[in-house]
């Protein structure tokens, strides 16, 4: 019987009402008195030396307040990178400067050359056209392998070359891995590309800077997944504003998917310019700008090899990856191909020996950083594709091959430095076989063939590491931040609660799901709990929302703070009832004394905390407000099994997704409706990556996919209804809610399932196709079919 409230209930989302009535408060909806507008003049070449930026004529244009260039940011800090990777020789990565506005050189199409601030947005745009600039175009490096060649043009003249780092993991295992390959009964090799993507949250980025001359305080309104992180990075490293003089607000944010984690130059510019001009300064990205200024995702080129013994047990895995960093290091870019990727290469399997090599490369392209899944989709895609290929080469059932090699005992320490606490990979595969109706596939294939179509079934397993992350561990790995979360729970005199959290909701439904947890802990109505997020002026500190961490880390902080509240409230209740604190029980919003009929209501206790006439003042302070910081002791490890069924038109190469099923293990679930929605969205993005989306540059570094005319976003008619199930639950053992996180799973688990399905369809039609790089557009599939 479904619950109608609390943990496990599909409570309808309270935030929906404002979004459905047009009364949300997105950053672009914020307009401040006296606000000016900025337009960025961006480079139209990928690589060039700036000889001159003449702003004189433009400065006299109507409405222009001031035009800034790179020279105005001499002495201002560089946009910082939050993660320092150490390479396999013990050297730290090469880390270039990233000025707010280009200085000396432009390094990608979209690099900002000048910023025009004017009374209106249109005036700023008009004035941009009057700026005379002279840029000597230089040869650009776009292809990663070319960028590493001796004598290749350097993206950064002050660095040795275009290699950010050459990372080996686990370096000490390398010899043993190579030896295992020599002894292998069978080796399967696959070279593949994880296509470059653009996250494309539907709300473009916006920044509004404000400066209060009377207090000297700066405020930045920005479309961020983590306003506290922006406050720290921008304040401490770029503009030199102490945190107590800088407030960052991220109100309703229209999707993030990773690309709104990072600190961007436009945020620093608006904050800087607001002070320089003593006026609020607003920037609203157009979608065209977003394509060339939002950090992109993925873009890995990999060779993966899987070694098996004569009984088809996996004995070793070896990968060689080139990962594109783009022209500058975005906030978490170095961590994505390393610690969020190499550590996942064991997948769901007990492969004893693994070696991962990653070369991160600078190119004249937009910076690349985390996009939904971040490193884990890249790991899963390689692994699950090579396993499928191995099964075909060996003539064994791909599901049986996976099951044979599944990890079945937990906790399990992988050879790539992580320890899975719980999981049951056979259970999710069993569930998948049921919900995807594998038994009926043969008949469905026959029906497709009868109409001249090829039908394929592809499966995929995944594991992800989320609930990011133990601070002491990530510190050792190069993170320049802690990855805890904080929460303050403020109980008002009349019993209502305000919970201030560092987690940020930009579609995940925190305002609904978080109160379900707290209401259940106290036994009150969820309507009595209000969630406040997205403002550094409220929550004490926050690392924000990404890496499927909000409930596992942020939720745990809320639980800890609420436990402190309950403990204090019990002391007050004990005093009111003249009983021993040890005998006080809290149930259904009332405190009672065990074994008696004495009881006081939640509201009586909260009132007493603020009107302490009858109160244990000698023992505890009045008031009822507690803060907790929660630092996880391990990652969480959601897992699952996905199945995709496709039809391929042999005449055109067009792929249609006929069925898509997902069986996930997210541990305990707070709101099943929201969890399903997260999986649906991830699958939609994964299908997009597999069939439609590709960010393309030409050999000169021109961005060829600069709008929705060229970049194929998934539409409603590209996808089917999905069947998702999360009834397999092995709770996380190390956080108080037993939750694992569900935000990225769909995007991680779906691309390999789609590609495996297409290969299956083509092989069923007698086509000897073993691999096609994503996106599997009709032309690529058709080309592959022609052999």
């Amino acid at each position, binding site marked *: 019987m479904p619950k109608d409230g609390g943990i496990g209930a599909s409570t*309808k989302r309270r935030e929906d009402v404002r979004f*459905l009535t047009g009364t949300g408060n997105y950053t*672009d909806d914020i307009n401040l008195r006296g606000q000016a507008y900025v337009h960025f003049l961006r480079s139209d070449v990928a690589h060039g030396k700036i000889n001159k930026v003449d702003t004189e004529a433009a400065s006299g244009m109507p409405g222009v307040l001031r035009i800034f260039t790179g020279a105005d940011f001499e002495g201002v800090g560089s946009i910082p990178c939050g993660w320092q990777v150490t390479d396999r020789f013990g050297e730290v990565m090469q880390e270039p400067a990233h000025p707010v506005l280009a200085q000396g050189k432009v390094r990608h199409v979209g690099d900002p050359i000048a910023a025009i601030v004017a009374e209106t947005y*249109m005036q700023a745009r008009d004035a941009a056209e009057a700026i005379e600039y002279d840029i000597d175009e230089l040869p650009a490096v776009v292809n990663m392998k070319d960028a590493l060649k001796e004598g290749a043009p350097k993206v950064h003249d002050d660095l040795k070359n275009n290699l950010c780092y050459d990372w080996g993991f686990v370096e000490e295992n390398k010899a043993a891995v190579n030896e295992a390959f020599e002894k292998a009964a069978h080796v399967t090799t696959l070279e593949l590309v994880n296509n470059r993507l653009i996250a494309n949250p539907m*709300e473009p980025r916006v920044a509004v800077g404000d400066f209060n001359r009377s207090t000297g305080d700066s405020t930045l309104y920005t479309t961020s997944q983590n306003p506290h992180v922006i406050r720290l990075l921008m304040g401490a490293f770029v503009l030199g504003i102490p945190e107590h003089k800088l407030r960052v607000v991220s109100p309703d944010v229209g999707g993030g998917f990773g690309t709104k984690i990072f600190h961007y130059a436009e945020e620093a510019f608006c904050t800087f310019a607001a002070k320089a001009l003593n006026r609020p300064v607003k920037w609203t990205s157009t979608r065209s700008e977003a394509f060339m200024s939002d950090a992109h995702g993925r873009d890995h080129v990999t060779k993966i090899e899987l070694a098996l013994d004569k009984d088809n047990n996996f004995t070793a895995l070896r990968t060689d990856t080139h990962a594109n960093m783009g022209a500058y290091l975005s906030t978490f870019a170095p961590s994505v191909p390393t610690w969020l990727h190499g550590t996942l290469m064991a997948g769901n399997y007990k492969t004893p020996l693994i070696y991962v090599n990653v070369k991160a490369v600078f190119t004249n392209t937009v910076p690349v950083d985390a996009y939904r899944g971040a490193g884990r989709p890249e790991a899963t895609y390689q692994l699950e594709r090579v396993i499928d290929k191995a099964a075909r080469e060996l003539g064994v059932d791909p599901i049986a091959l996976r099951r044979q090699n599944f990890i079945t005992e937990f906790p399990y320490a992988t050879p790539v430095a992580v320890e899975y606490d719980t999981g049951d990979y056979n259970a999710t595969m069993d569930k998948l076989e049921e919900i995807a109706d594998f038994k009926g596939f043969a008949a469905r294939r026959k029906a497709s063939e009868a109409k001249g179509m090829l039908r394929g079934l592809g499966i995929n397993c995944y594991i992800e590491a989320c609930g990011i992350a133990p601070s002491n561990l990530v510190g050792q790995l190069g993170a320049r931040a802690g990855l805890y979360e904080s929460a303050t729970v403020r109980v008002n005199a009349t019993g209502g609660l305000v919970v201030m959290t560092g987690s940020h909701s930009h579609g995940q439904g925190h305002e609904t799901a978080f109160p379900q947890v707290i209401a259940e802990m106290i036994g009150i109505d969820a309507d009595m709990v209000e969630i406040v997020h997205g403002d550094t002026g409220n929550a004490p500190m926050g690392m924000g929302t990404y890496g499927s961490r909000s409930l596992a880390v942020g939720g745990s902080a809320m639980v800890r703070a609420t436990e402190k509240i309950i403990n204090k409230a019990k002391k007050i209740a004990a005093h009111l009832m003249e009983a021993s604190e040890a005998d006080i029980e809290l149930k259904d919003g009332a405190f009672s004394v065990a074994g008696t009929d004495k009881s006081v209501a939640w509201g009586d206790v909260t009132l007493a905390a603020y009107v302490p006439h009858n109160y244990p003042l000698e023992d505890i302070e009045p008031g009822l407000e507690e803060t907790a910081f929660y630092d996880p002791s391990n990652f969480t490890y959601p897992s699952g099994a996905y199945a995709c069924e496709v039809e391929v038109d042999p005449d055109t190469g067009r792929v249609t997704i006929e069925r898509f099923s997902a069986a996930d293990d997210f541990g305990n679930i707070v709101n099943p409706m929201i969890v399903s929605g997260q999986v649906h969205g991830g699958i939609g993005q994964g299908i997009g990556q597999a069939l439609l989306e590709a960010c393309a540059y030409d050999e000169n570094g021109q961005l060829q996919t600069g709008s929705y*005319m060229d970049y194929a976003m998934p539409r409603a*008619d590209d996808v089917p209804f999905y069947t998702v199930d999360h009834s397999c639950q092995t709770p996380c053992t190390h956080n108080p809610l037993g939750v694992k996180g569900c935000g990225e799973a769909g995007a991680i688990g779906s691309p390999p399932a789609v590609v495996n399905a297409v290969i299956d369809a083509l092989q069923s039609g007698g086509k000897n196709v073993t691999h096609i790089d994503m996106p599997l557009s009709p032309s690529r599939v058709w080309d592959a079919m022609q052999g």
Partner: protein
Amino acid sequence: MPQVNMTVNGKSASGQIEGRTLLVEFLRETLGLTGTHVGCDTSQCGACVVHVDGRAVKACTMFAAEAEGAEVLTIESMAAPDGTLNTIQQAFQDHHGLQCGFCTPGMVMSAAALLAENPKPTEAEVRNYLEGNICRCTGYHNIVKAILAASGQDVSAIAAE
């Protein structure tokens, strides 16, 4: 600057605007009706869909001056004056047809136009009609389901959670 006059959500609205002002800019900046969103600059995403004289229109694709004398309806007009959601809005909430909410106003306005011309659409008709509305959060599953439900059709057989 020229003057433009129209009826927006049943009230007369006018403003002095530059000729190049788009309808969506007039709604958002001049009238302060920020429920209509701008998600792209190539008329692809549909976050700005409003109704002009009963037709669904991308408000980034016409100049405000072109709406001179027109009856314009935006997302702000869809709920009852007491705040009660209309059938489509309620179905979106009931079936979790939105996440970040940014594409939602356009989705609701498109859905309303669809159901006005085709009160009982099939799944394929809904998906086809939404070709001009992009959502990045939901994978469309619950949007399509919500619109079918709003049309009075039984959606209980569609995979739920």
